[in-house]
């Protein structure tokens, strides 16, 4: 599966060197089409910057760009209690990520290294959970976690960990499978011991997979909206996660678009940057078990 994400460089070069003679014009047509599409994907999010920097007294103007630009929506963001929401979202995302890694590392390692009864059943269970989303069982989640009586933040950590476990198990399983067991055995013969072989050989080699699982889970939990909305209902705004708190700028009669998009940028820009690091590997984790 890893080979699908990293094609052999030799094959690529060969496939592309053939039509080199008529390359320049064709390449530029392709490039320009791609640039236009890239701009289309970017523009809605640039619009967040435009709106966040539009002064409040210009919110009613039908202009594409504001006449004046201001940073006041960013500087007054903290007085709206957003700091607390960022903290809550960080707690939820970090907590879910730690749990996912602690739980998925042993499971992925064991299923990659050993053949035992129930292994296929376990992997099938994991694959099936990847197909179920919280929206499909929201009533059950809400009633179960209300009965538990846990604080909403802790409930959200557990729920987010559960629904993102599958991605992590699959991608780590693929990485561990690609590391030859002989490598660990050789290290053990050299006197590293089992723990040493795992921490000094296997885990560093699987690091790209671990980083991918880590960032993916963090982003998914950071962005999660539906369960957060359901379980943090009635909390004070500063204790609600960011995705829910942003909606508090929407009032019954008017919307505080300036603060809303300033907060939106705070919520969005970090995860886009994080996502760029794992961009190439995410697909293999999401489609694992099916694409060969």
């Amino acid at each position, binding site marked *: 599966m890893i080979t699908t994400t990293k094609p052999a460089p030799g094959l690529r070069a060969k496939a592309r060197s053939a039509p080199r003679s008529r390359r320049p014009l064709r*390449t530029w047509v392709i490039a320009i089409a791609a*640039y236009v599409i890239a701009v289309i*994907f970017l523009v809605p999010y640039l619009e967040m910057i435009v709106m966040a920097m539009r002064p409040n007294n210009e919110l*009613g103007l039908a202009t594409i760009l504001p006449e004046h630009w201001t940073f006041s929506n960013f500087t007054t963001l903290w007085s709206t209690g957003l700091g607390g929401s960022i903290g809550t979202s960080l707690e939820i995302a970090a907590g879910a990520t730690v749990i996912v890694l602690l739980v998925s590392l042993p499971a992925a390692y064991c299923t990659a290294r050993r053949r035992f009864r129930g292994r296929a059943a*376990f992997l099938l269970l994991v694959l099936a959970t990847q197909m179920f989303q919280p929206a*499909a069982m929201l009533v059950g989640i809400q009633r179960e976690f209300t009965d538990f009586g846990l604080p909403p933040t802790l409930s959200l950590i557990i729920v987010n960990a559960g629904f993102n476990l599958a991605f992590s198990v699959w991608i780590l399983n693929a990485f561990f*499978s690609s590391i030859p067991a002989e490598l660990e055995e050789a290290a053990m013969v050299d006197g590293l011991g089992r723990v040493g072989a795992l921490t000094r050989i296997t885990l560093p080699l699987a690091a790209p997979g671990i980083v991918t699982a880590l960032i993916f889970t963090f982003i998914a939990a950071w962005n999660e909206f539906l369960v957060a909305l359901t379980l943090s209902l009635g909390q004070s705004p500063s204790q609600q996660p960011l*995705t829910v708190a942003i909606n508090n700028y929407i009032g019954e009669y008017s919307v505080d678009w300036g603060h809303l998009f300033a907060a939106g940028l705070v919520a969005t820009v970090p*995860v886009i940057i994080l996502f760029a690091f794992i961009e190439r590997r995410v697909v293999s984790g999401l489609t694992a078990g099916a694409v060969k």
Partner: protein
Amino acid sequence: MLALRRLTPLLWLGPAIALIGVVVLWPVVVMVQSSFQQIGGEGFVAGYNGTTNYDNLFHEPDFVSVLLRTVIWVVAIVGVTMLISLGLAQLFHQRFPGRQVTRWALIIPWAASVMMTALIFKWALDPNVGVINVILHHIGVVKQLGSNQADWLGNPTSALIWMMAVAVFVSLPFTTYALLSGLQGIPGDVYEAASIDGATSWRSYLGVTLPLLRPAILVATLINVINVFNSFPIIWEMTRGGPGYETSTSTIYMIDLKQGDVGQAAAMSVFNFLLVIVIVLVYLSTTRWKEQVGR
């Protein structure tokens, strides 16, 4: 001793199984149980009431139209997404200067919260000052700002079309990437063989690329179907499923029912859940997860 050894995998897998049990499996049990109970909006359980929730649900005047709309919602969004993504994947598979930068732009709607994207479009479609309306007014499509024509989200049909467009927009990055990874798995010499046989680029796309992309297309389609079926933030932020239930899908309908009648919402959830199971079964039977597992 041997029996003990056989149990060691359980030590490694136990935490994962426990987590899945608590977060994914037990809620299903609670949900099914709730669907046979009378529960008020506050969550107070008044006792079992047999199949009353299901009877009520199936006799809701909006039930059939919501289901039909859900089918249209899923089929249209996934279909359009797949078609556009096939083109995008082909384009971004080429080598050109600045490709990495354009691919970063492509992932933004994937990385950003769908809720935020929905809010951007909700604002951009504001009848008076939304930037889409302002631009459409400039080029003469919208005759007057603030008119009924500019109130795209107030009319169920145009609201649905705009929301489907947003759903396609946020589904494109994953789908394109899934197809790109499929394209990268096709060895170059397959194309060389095709071109030696005299196949034109369009013929070799239909005859070589598409069949070899089949697994990637299949997986991307099914993952999209699940995502779009369960999609919540777009409709919730842009129309709340209204006016009435005229822009509700079954997921939104269930969440709205939950405000007043948890038992009936549970019945709707069970119904949705069975649909998801059918989709998952189709998924498992058409894909090669067994090969992957047995590797």
